[in-house]
């Protein structure tokens, strides 16, 4: 599904409070989120060609309509232990080299009031916090908002 780039400042007229849209996805029992404006598109499983000698968190390369992208094993990148195969591609990088982040399952698009976006705690069990930008406490669980810059860093 192709996501339009312009829906960033979406406001619900009923609410006076400012909100932000996030795309959520699952990886090893965590619910992660990325701001919609960071995500170019989401793709179901694409063939991955492994690249020998590449950094460990790089799964390989994918062919996205004739463009060759690097596929990042997001779980490995952020220090997670994942059990299931991650087949879904979250393509990020609008203004720079696009990358595919491999995730297990794509969730909903959620709208979160700015007031509920918090600084991350010092430690999140099973996760390298340096990749976490913010968190938000949803009724049933913690939403972990990832720091795209950090993920893209070499």
């Amino acid at each position, binding site marked *: 599904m192709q996501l339009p780039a312009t829906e960033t400042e979406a406001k619900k007229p009923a609410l006076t409070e400012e909100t932000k849209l996030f795309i959520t996805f699952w990886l090893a029992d965590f619910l992660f989120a990325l701001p919609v404006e960071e995500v170019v598109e989401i793709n179901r499983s694409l063939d991955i060609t492994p690249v*020998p*000698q590449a*950094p460990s968190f*790089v799964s390989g390369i994918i062919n996205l309509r004739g463009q*060759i992208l*690097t596929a990042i094993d997001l779980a490995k990148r952020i220090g997670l232990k994942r059990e299931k195969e991650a087949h879904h591609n979250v393509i990020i990088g609008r203004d720079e*080299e696009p*990358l595919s982040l491999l995730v297990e399952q794509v969730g909903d698009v959620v709208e979160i009031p700015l007031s509920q976006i918090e600084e991350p705690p010092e430690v999140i069990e099973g996760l390298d916090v340096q990749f976490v930008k913010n968190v938000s406490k949803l009724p049933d669980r913690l939403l972990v908002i990832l720091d795209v810059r950090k993920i893209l860093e*070499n």
Partner: protein
Amino acid sequence: MGFEEDVLKDFITEAKENLERLDEEFVELEQHPEDRELLSSIFRTIHTIKGTAGFFGFKTLEAIAHFAEDILSKLRDGLVVADEETIDMLLKAVDYIKAIIAALEETGKEPVDETYLDFLVDLRNFAEKVAKKAEGGGAPPKEKAEEAPAQESKAEEQKPSEEPPSEEKPEEAQAVAESQKDQEEPKAEEKAAPSEEGKAKAESKPEAPKPALASPKKKEDKGVPHVHLTETHVRVDVKLLDQLMNLAGELVLSRNRLVQIASRISDAELQNATQNLSLVTTELQEKIMKTRMQPIGNVFNKFPRIVRDLARSTGKKVNLRIEGADTELDRSIIDAIKDPLTHLVRNSIDHGIEEPDIRVQMGKPPVGTLVLRAYHEGGQVVIEIEDDGRGIDVEKVKQKAIEKGLITPAEAEKMSDREALALIFKPGFSTAQKVTNISGRGVGMDVVKTNVEKLGGSIDIQTVLGAGTTVRLKIPLTLAIIPALVVTCEGQRYAIPQVSLRELVGLSPETRKNIHQIGDSEFFRLRGEMVPIIRLSKILGIEAQPRENESLVILNSGAMDFGLVVDEIWDSEEIVVKPLGKHFKDISIFAGATIMGDGKMALILDVVGISRKIGLKVEDVDKAKEETAAKTVGEDEQQFILLFNVSPEEQFAIPLALVARLDKIKAEKLEFVGGKEIVQYRGRSMPIIRLENYLPIQPLPEQEEYHLLVFAEGEREVAFLVSRIVDSIQTHVKLDERLYQIEGVLGSAIVKDRTTLFLDVYKIIEMHDPYFFVKIVPQEERPYRVLLAEDSPFFRQMIANYLAAAGYEVETAVDGLDAWEKLQKEPFDVLVTDIEMPNMTGIELAKKIRADERLANLPIMALTSLASDEDRRRGLEAGIDEYQVKLERAKVLEALADLLNRKYARAA
């Protein structure tokens, strides 16, 4: 507004093209200062710029062009001759014009800067000077000059006048300068020009040669665009071409995919359709590629100016020759090689070509020659930068590399010339003794190499000290689409660019016999040549299953050939090179990726990167070659050598036959008596030689027990003290004499994977004790002159040394023929010759001597490694007087003395 903007754009584009040409023309002019046609062409270009500048009201530009034109007109009419000063001034004018044009392009306005006005004043004064000079040499009458302003109004109908007036130039310049300072006039009036400056325009018109008429005309008919777009050419944005190229690439991929599907379905109609599509696609791709092709002349044309300026600033004289300027290359490559080429040309002039007086001293013409040459070769473009300068001193390169800490002195000693030259490409290397403003700024050849390799090209240096250097770049024609060989390794496909491919070899149990393990590396014997091979799976670092059938792909990395073992060879395919992301930038073994016909991806192997990764060194390959050689030579050329260490890092060798005994002693047995180190040995005191006292080598470490190599001469004995006996092996020694020219060392060779010094035992013993050897030479009033013919450098040196030590005067020859020639020139008392030699054997030589009247009585002694009775018989038949074994020094000397006594006593 729109129209004017368009015209301005066209003007700038055209002016830029013209200016490029001007640079060249000026340089040419310097060589042919009287070339009218050239002068007219330059004049026209400047004139057009002046006219158009006037039209737009660019006053500074107009004025600079005006005065330049003024000077040029004098040159054109032959009133003055173009000297260096004049051309310098004119070139400066061109530079200023360029700068203004650049500013116009960026801002649409002339730059406001004092320097332009300062230069304008300079130029004006200079123009005046030229005018005066011209007047002195028969300038046109003054009245004519004063007439000109009056004719202003009639300028249009007027016939071209030869001379613009020179008198009023100063005022004009002033006027321009002042108006420039006071106000910024964006545009001149479209119609008549009432101002002072207008005069310049009016004057310019009459003398405008035909091609330049376009600009003044425009003033009258507004509707006519300035630049005529002829029907045959259209300017196209490069970006558009790039997009077309990408699309063509995608089309090629779709075509490939379709062809695969069609071959599977095998429907006749579909087959036809795809075949047609295939043809059209190929042609389309070729044509689009062609639109991007440009002659390399576009880059080469910049060099006459660069070379000229460089030569001037370095005080050298350089003649630039350009060959193959019409060779075509993809424009992206043309852009990319500009900087590397400039750097190489600068290097050639700065470091290569000598100052004129030095050149004359060396017997070269004072003017150096620099050749820029381009040509096609096997789907690639070769660009050569050749100079006839001083060449590169390999030793200096090594020295520098040691100083910079790039290599250790030990490494330097082992390096071949080729490897040493490669040091130039190491980061942080610069051969310039001093840092000049031209080259030697630290960013150097490493950047050039990286840039060339980025393009998929290679760089190679050939140099002859004192005679010149040639740098050769090999560059692919295009970057985007390349033919490649697809291979597999553990289920994945990889593409290898066809340009690197030499040949394919199937590995069957039969062909596997050609694989040889040498040290840690494997080599494949390909038609007698040893080619290092490596497994692709090993390069990729993946677990490989052992396989029955594999294939060997022989590749060339520019510097050398090597073989890559792959699982399967698929097919040859045109692939579109796609870059890999930044996460892969540290992986040197891939050049990119491509999408195959079935939509799957394949990584493209970087052949140069792989060859570097496996660390193949020319030395290893040489070693392999040597080992093959060792197996093919006859047994009689082999000899037993003894390998030993003094310090563990250095390996030495001596012929085993020279050693009388090997023994061990305890350290406490060593005594230092009367300034001599001795050891109690078999009831006698035997002198000890520590090699480090005579050779520049690492000292013997302290040990509890040492080894003794005992040498005997009659009753006398002496021993080398060494730390360890490594081995004694039978081998063919291919001695390199050049690397170590040290007394006591015969040369070096690689034995058992290590560089080994072959020691001259006799010399070292003599250094230790000059009276050790008994001189048994029959001494007359002068020493006997011996001619020694021996092809092996190892034996030649050793025998020559022991003969010389025995008191003979020794001349050497490298084979029978050489000996024969030497015998013709000089008298010798005796010939000592090897039997087996190239060109002319000892037997042939002996026969020839015996057949020659003057030499018939020359005593001849033959030396051989092994003397059999059969050999002896053949030798005696040929007229050889004595037969001895090379290494039995004492016997050789005795027999020689005996022979000489016999012959000359008889003669006397």
